[in-house]
């Protein structure tokens, strides 16, 4: 009787362990499947034309304008999000570490981190695209700058969070030593703490870039898309994710190859960035422990 119960428990245990191994294999299988098909189709479609020709509606072109547009908008987005994010993260870590306001903002920042990006796109449409169109009587409506603002909203919470975390990792003795020398708080923050945490904060910016570079939904109604080369941020602007979206939506299968090529570029970029950032963060964290 006792033996029977024990055998039963062991069988249940074995089954559970085998199933959990299968679950892990399943997860890895999907990762390999997605990466493999992207590599396979993307490499087959890779061509110098991609970098020299612009996108064409319903016909084979290139991705030159999409690559340039993505670079321009990602850069502007980082230029907007980085100072604001670092400042907000510093406020949370240094000034509002234990306050109620700090707790609320930290909490809402975590929610913004996973808020639906398409709604952020609608928000930027309402506060940037519509007013600009009204002010200029429709000359400027959808624009690269609007797209960049939407992307900045997506990168912002990532930077806020890593800055907050990284500053809290700086040892208290460093703060106390500086304060005991009579240094004002703002100098302590910018010249001592920021310097100690700079590599961690930079990693946060890279993670934000990895996050916003692949976003499509918020760009649809802000930067819109453009089949011409545009470098002026006040013009409608194409981007890699939106170009992939358009090429994928096209019924012509010849264009799907272009979508795969774009997918390969964006996936390699994003994965390389986030792998590097994670590796760096990991090294940094273990150095502090």
């Amino acid at each position, binding site marked *: 009787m006792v033996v029977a119960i024990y055998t039963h428990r062991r069988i249940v245990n074995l089954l559970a362990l085998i199933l959990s191994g299968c679950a892990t294999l399943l997860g890895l299988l999907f990762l390999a499947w997605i990466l493999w098909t992207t590599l396979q189709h993307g490499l087959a479609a890779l061509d110098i034309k991609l970098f020299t020709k612009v996108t064409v509606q319903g016909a084979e072109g290139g991705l030159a304008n999409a690559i340039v547009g993505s670079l321009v908008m990602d850069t502007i987005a980082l230029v907007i999000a980085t100072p604001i994010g670092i400042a907000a993260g510093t406020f949370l870590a240094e*000034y509002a570490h234990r306050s109620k306001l700090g707790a609320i903002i930290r909490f809402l920042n975590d929610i913004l981190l996973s808020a639906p990006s398409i709604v952020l796109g*609608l928000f930027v449409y309402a506060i940037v695209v519509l007013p600009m169109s009204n002010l200029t009587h429709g000359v400027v409506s959808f624009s690269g700058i609007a797209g960049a603002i939407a992307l900045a909203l997506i990168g912002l919470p990532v930077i806020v969070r890593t800055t907050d975390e990284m500053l809290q990792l700086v040892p208290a003795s460093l703060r106390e030593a500086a304060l005991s020398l009579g240094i004002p708080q703002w100098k302590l923050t910018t010249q001592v703490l920021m310097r100690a945490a700079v590599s961690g904060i930079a990693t946060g910016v890279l993670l934000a870039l990895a996050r916003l570079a692949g976003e499509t939904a918020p760009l649809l109604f802000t930067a819109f898309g453009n089949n011409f080369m545009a470098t002026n941020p006040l013009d409608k602007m194409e981007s890699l994710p939106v170009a992939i979206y358009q090429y994928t939506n096209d019924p012509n299968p010849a264009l799907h190859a272009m979508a795969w090529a774009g997918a390969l570029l964006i996936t390699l970029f994003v994965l390389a960035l986030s792998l590097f950032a994670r590796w760096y963060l990991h090294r940094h964290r273990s150095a502090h422990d």
Partner: protein
Amino acid sequence: MSLSSSPAVETASLRSEVDAHHDAWFRRTLKACALLVLAALLGAALSTLWGGREVLFGHGLHFITSTAWNPAANDYGALAPIFGTLVTSLIALILAVPTSFGIALFLTEIAPAWLRGPVSAAIELLASIPSIIYGMWGLFVFVPFMAHIEPALGNTLGRIPLIGKLFDGPPIGLGILTAGIVLAVMILPFMCAVMREVFSTVPARLKESSHALGATTWEVMCDIVLPYTRSAVIGGIFLGLGRALGETMAVTFVLGNAYSVTTSLLMPGTSISSSIANEFNEAVGLHRSALIALGFQLFVVTFAVLLIARLMLHRLARLEGN
């Protein structure tokens, strides 16, 4: 000679005054930036509420209960997209919760130390793949695959009374079930990361003592680890749900874009986010207002879900005294 008139003390007090002034400004600037986070969330809610006011208040309950989505007649009922969003997210949860629990169990209890790092890094990589790639892969690779699988599903599960209705439909690969599976793969790494993290916070003492009493790994997991981390696990699940509800690009291609509410999971459908993505740029007037109203609903629902998620996650942190 009084102290305050000494030139050294005077410069010192002047300097501390200037410093205090700078400090106050520095603090105010930082605070303003931090408040921008608040403003972004509040702005997103208010701007979608304002943009969708004509339909939200004009159509009233009809907007939520009706399945009519007719831009030509300016009649908008959002039941089909709401239904699609909820059902695809539910399928994603049903599939992803046990799988991510299994992976977290494997990573914290079973895998040898040298395997943990690489495997958890690989699972986390799933989270960094852009959603448009999920969408493309879903449409070009996974939909044809599902088209092969679905006839078999119809012949086996479809024969069972009651449940059978769910798998009774055209086996074309596109549809609610496929979208749910793609979503499951997408939210898997988020839930898995939370579970793995909280499982590793369980004190080794607790686990070791129950092992010493003769409990198997599975029993330790169910009776010690899960009760200890329950609120955080639920928080992680809600975090995944929040992601699934708001996801756009991964589901837009594979849903099939049809305004219908059906009992069959093999039928094409639509979701709130994919309706907005597909139609917003062509919509004018009331149609646009209806889409923005949909966005407002999505925002409110995901906000509530993420709020619960964060509160649950907070609970465990407080329990530990952090």
